């Protein structure tokens, strides 16, 4: 069973942190189909958060088709997430590093680069939503 952690300083909504941690655990193979998620009561006892937050996170995961709630038994993982291909990860890391080096060579500072990254990131993911 996984144990959730909270990062209060992250600025990420609590329910989203729970969802992301389940995603990560699935990607890393720490959670597999058939595994049970902690009950809302267990998470509340551990983190002192609102049980509705836990239920909201589990509902999101259920909507994604990753888990299913079985009344009286708990919430179970029903699908795994493909693990991120480490070769692809390395490829993107090195092309991003090249990009950063060339931006720095053109005289851009860390703030400029971060602003560009944020804008590109937002544009890219906003397209997906809209």
């Amino acid at each position, binding site marked *: 069973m996984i144990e959730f952690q909270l990062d209060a300083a992250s600025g990420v909504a609590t329910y989203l942190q729970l969802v992301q941690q389940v995603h990560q655990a699935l990607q890393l193979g720490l959670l597999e189909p058939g595994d049970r998620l902690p009950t809302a009561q267990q998470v509340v006892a551990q983190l002192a958060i609102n049980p*509705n937050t836990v239920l*909201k996170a589990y509902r999101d995961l259920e909507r994604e088709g990753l888990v299913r709630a079985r009344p009286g038994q708990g919430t179970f993982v029903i699908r795994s997430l493909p693990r991120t291909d480490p070769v692809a990860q390395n490829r993107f890391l090195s092309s991003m590093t090249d990009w950063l080096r060339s931006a720095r060579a053109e005289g851009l500072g860390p703030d400029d680069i971060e602003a560009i990254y*944020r804008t590109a990131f937002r544009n890219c993911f*906003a397209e997906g939503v809209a």
Partner: protein
Amino acid sequence: MSFVIEASGLGKQYGRRWALRDCTLAIPDGKVVGLVGPNSAGKTTLLHLAVGLVSPTSGSIRTLGANPGEGPVQLGRVGFVAQDTPVYGKLSVAQHLRMGAWLNPRWDPGIAASRIEQLGLDPRQRAGTLSGGQRAQLALTLAIAKSPECLILDEPVASLDPLARREFLRSLMEIVAAQGISVVLSSHLIADLERVCDYLVVLVGSRLQVAGEVSDLLSSHHRISGPRRDASGLPPSLEVIEESHTGKQSTFLIRTSDPVHDPAWTVRPVTLDDLVITYMSRQANTSERTRRPQLKVMS
């Protein structure tokens, strides 16, 4: 939809001072509601009105769909813990429970006993010698053992150290998880509320500033910055909560239900802390503006 607290044009006057005025809100059932605001914002007054300890000067309020403090049945439906979690210093823990059982028709001795055991309290100990955290837990035990439909807590953790505060909120959340009851609690510590509340009510200067689901509030407020321009030049769908300008740049905290697509703006999400502090300072600025002309007259 049923509501835990429903108020319409609610006001309460003490002497010449309005402790709360023109308050209209409807808080849905089944939430953990955080009531925030600086001291003397009207938080305690609103809670006292909700439990029927005082009656409105104007407007109306209903708690769980009924007149607060209407009779023994209504009193039994609401568990209330007043500020500083008062207990009787000379009575022992066991005597508190006996009194609770005697005064409350729906008293659940099982819940009371198991909570006292879980907390590791000695039933023979006098309440006056308990630590602050233990006193708060005893008060919460009395409030929950009467089997209420909602809990109303006035600054329950204000005087507790961080560990006792966390333990108290954990107990409270375990109660919510087990019994699904509504909770309304006031605090001026936003960090505490952030973990536990899913609904927020901000009171400042005896007026309601904003109320809503925490997730809705966070997704509808953004901080945007871009080339300098006046608030009047923004699309009407954006409600400006706060603005600040430098030579070339303008920054606004806005409320909108539409996504902001204008590429001229850098859009940042706001934290709950940000949001509450902005609403609080907005009120402070307004009252400063209204005071200023009077100062001129004086000089």
